């Protein structure tokens, strides 16, 4: 194999966003990085697909011999995400993109609106999530007196400073539950619902009675508010042009520019160990569109960082992950904006679990041609939730479908298992990431990135600031 080193500091398996961020940062730290994917494209589960690839990923969505994608225009005008997530404008991923100058490779558009549903069925109200004291006074989500209580709550959150106990409002924020905070402001159940689920973005109600969780909840509401104010949008979210699949590709380029080696279309044949710790890999790089057997190679490595799909093969006896939940998801193609979103080109709608008698929230993420993910006139809406039943999954998503009106095309399969590693990796030096979870943003993804770095390197990750690095910028 041409120019392959005999040993690497780290071999990464899978080019999902988590692995690509780590690859980029480790290459900047001048570690010797080899990054492998079994697929012929970047992104793994966080890739974006063109319309033909999307139909082919859901073979039940059409009859054999048909080519339903032909009626949707140029295939490459479509970049449909597999993971229904958005970026918090003031969140950790956005900050990482800015600091590492990965923003050189990818451009962003705001998501136009952030909405929440109150009630269910025909009488449901869908309204903008108020994020400021003044917006609370205008919100149709609350009655007259509740509006004033909510305004007082938002003012308190706005002024809250972790380091200044005088802003705690007489509460012991280190000890108390969020229920005590809500009680203090006298907020009604539906108000607690949209605050906890559409602003703090909790997916269940477990946070309410958890001792000491109030501070984190306030942090989350502040992140939401700061993100709304960050860019000229009306939601706290931004989104990369050409789809989320651009993000792993951009961090992969950062890694490559800093010396990381990339190999797609490569199967791992064997993981080698010495004294219980990983010592190397044997792999085969296939040749695209040829029937040849490919090129086998081996190399030594001190560590492996991998997505869970690389350590989940019971036949090979290498299972190092466990299933923690199942994500239910339907990708819908529409030819109209979604009702009650002010004809927005994009939006997030959250249906809090209690409003529709569930344990987990239902999320709807809507993007369109302004994000260069589909031709003009189309909208892509992904409805998702954590599966609660053993079947009838369609019914679990139905409250989401009810919001969408006429659906041209619906892509849906059985729920997707979400995995977490069994061990932290310190025993065998194999560090495994978590599946992309059901949250509507990437904050848990960057938490996982930081956790993997901590486990693998034994210290906190510091995102390198490349904005002042003269070697990285071109001559003006």
């Amino acid at each position, binding site marked *: 194999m041409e120019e392959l080193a005999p040993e690497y500091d780290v071999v990464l398996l899978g080019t999902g966003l988590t692995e690509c961020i780590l690859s980029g940062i480790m290459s900047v730290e001048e570690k010797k990085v080899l990054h492998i994917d079994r697929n012929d494209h970047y992104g793994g589960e966080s890739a974006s697909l063109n319309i033909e690839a999307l139909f082919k990923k859901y073979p039940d969505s059409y009859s054999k011999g048909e080519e339903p994608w032909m009626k949707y225009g140029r295939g490459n005008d479509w970049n449909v995400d597999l993971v229904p997530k958005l970026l918090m404008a003031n969140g950790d991923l956005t900050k990482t993109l800015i600091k590492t100058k990965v923003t050189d490779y990818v451009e962003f558009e*705001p998501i136009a609106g952030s909405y929440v549903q109150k009630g269910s069925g025909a009488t449901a109200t869908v309204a903008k999530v108020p994020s400021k004291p003044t917006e609370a006074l205008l919100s149709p989500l609350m009655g007259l007196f509740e509006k004033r209580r909510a305004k007082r709550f938002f003012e308190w959150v706005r002024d809250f400073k972790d380091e200044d106990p005088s802003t705690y409002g007489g509460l012991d924020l280190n000890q108390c539950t969020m229920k005590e905070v809500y009680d203090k402001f006298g907020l009604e159940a539906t108000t607690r619902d949209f605050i906890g689920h559409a602003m703090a973005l909790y997916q269940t109600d477990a946070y309410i009675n958890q001792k000491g969780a109030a501070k984190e909840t306030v942090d989350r509401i502040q992140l939401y508010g700061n993100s709304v104010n960050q860019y000229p949008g009306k939601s706290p979210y931004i989104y990369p042009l050409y789809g989320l699949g651009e993000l792993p590709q951009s961090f992969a380029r950062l890694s490559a*520019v800093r010396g990381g080696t990339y190999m797609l279309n490569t199967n791992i044949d064997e993981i080698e160990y010495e004294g219980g710790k990983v010592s190397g890999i044997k792999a085969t790089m296939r040749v695209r569109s040829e029937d040849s057997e490919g090129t086998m190679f081996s190399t030594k490595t001190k560590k492996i960082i991998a997505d869970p799909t690389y350590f989940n093969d019971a036949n090979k006896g290498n299972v190092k992950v466990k299933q923690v939940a199942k994500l239910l998801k339907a990708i819908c193609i529409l030819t109209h904006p979604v009702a009650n979103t002010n004809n927005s080109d994009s939006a997030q709608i959250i249906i809090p679990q209690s409003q529709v008698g569930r344990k987990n929230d239902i999320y709807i993420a809507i993007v369109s041609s302004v994000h260069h993910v589909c031709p003009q006139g189309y909208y892509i809406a992904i409805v998702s939730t954590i599966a609660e039943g053993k079947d009838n999954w369609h019914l679990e998503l139905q409250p989401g479908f009810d919001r969408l009106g006429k659906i041209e095309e619906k892509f849906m399969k059985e729920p997707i298992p979400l995995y977490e590693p069994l061990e932290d990796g310190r025993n065998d030096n194999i560090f495994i990431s978590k599946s992309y979870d059901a949250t509507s943003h990437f904050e848990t993804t960057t938490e996982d990135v930081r956790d993997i770095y901590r486990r693998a390197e034994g210290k906190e990750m510091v995102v390198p600031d490349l*904005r*002042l690095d003269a070697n990285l910028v*071109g001559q003006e």
Partner: protein
Amino acid sequence: MSSRVSTGARPGARFAQFKLVLLGESAVGKSSLVLRFVKDQFDDYRESTIGAAFLTQTISLDDATTVKFEIWDTAGQERYKSLAPMYYRNANCAVVVYDITQASSLDKAKSWVKELQRQANENIIIALAGNKSDLVAEHPDKRAITTADAEAYAREAGLLFFETSAKTAENVRELFTAIARKLPLEQAGNRGMRANPRQGVDLRPEAPGTQGGGACNC
């Protein structure tokens, strides 16, 4: 960063920016060509990556017209066929490089041209560059691909064609100037360009309103 045409300080002056991508087999001199064009330097023992996100260089076509290239190197991702679609995305022009002393490198160049026609914008302008002409000037027997053969292929495929030397600078500026002259200046900023017609989110460090207050891009 995005492609755009803007009027300069003087009436009638035009400034346009375009994304240019480099392609070709490893070690044919892609990065060296760029380094010669951008910094007028050459290094016999260059490492295979240049370590830059992209480099920029401007060319004045005439008194009133300036073209700025944003030049993307493969960063070695072509080595194991691992270039990402993002690399081709919105490229306005491409330089496909081969080594005139290596017969197989023209075959590789031809497959990169096909890949560009599959992946890139329909209207992309492609130039074929037969590099290392200095080696042949010293030792004519080292030539493995005749000028006529490469030229015939370039004509057939509708490519600009130059034999270049990053080492002596022969035809390097001419190559980029020819590309600049062929670019659709009057359309830049409208169709197929990186420009974003909407008021988007600008996260780049130099943008006002982001945390890059102290950052310098010079």
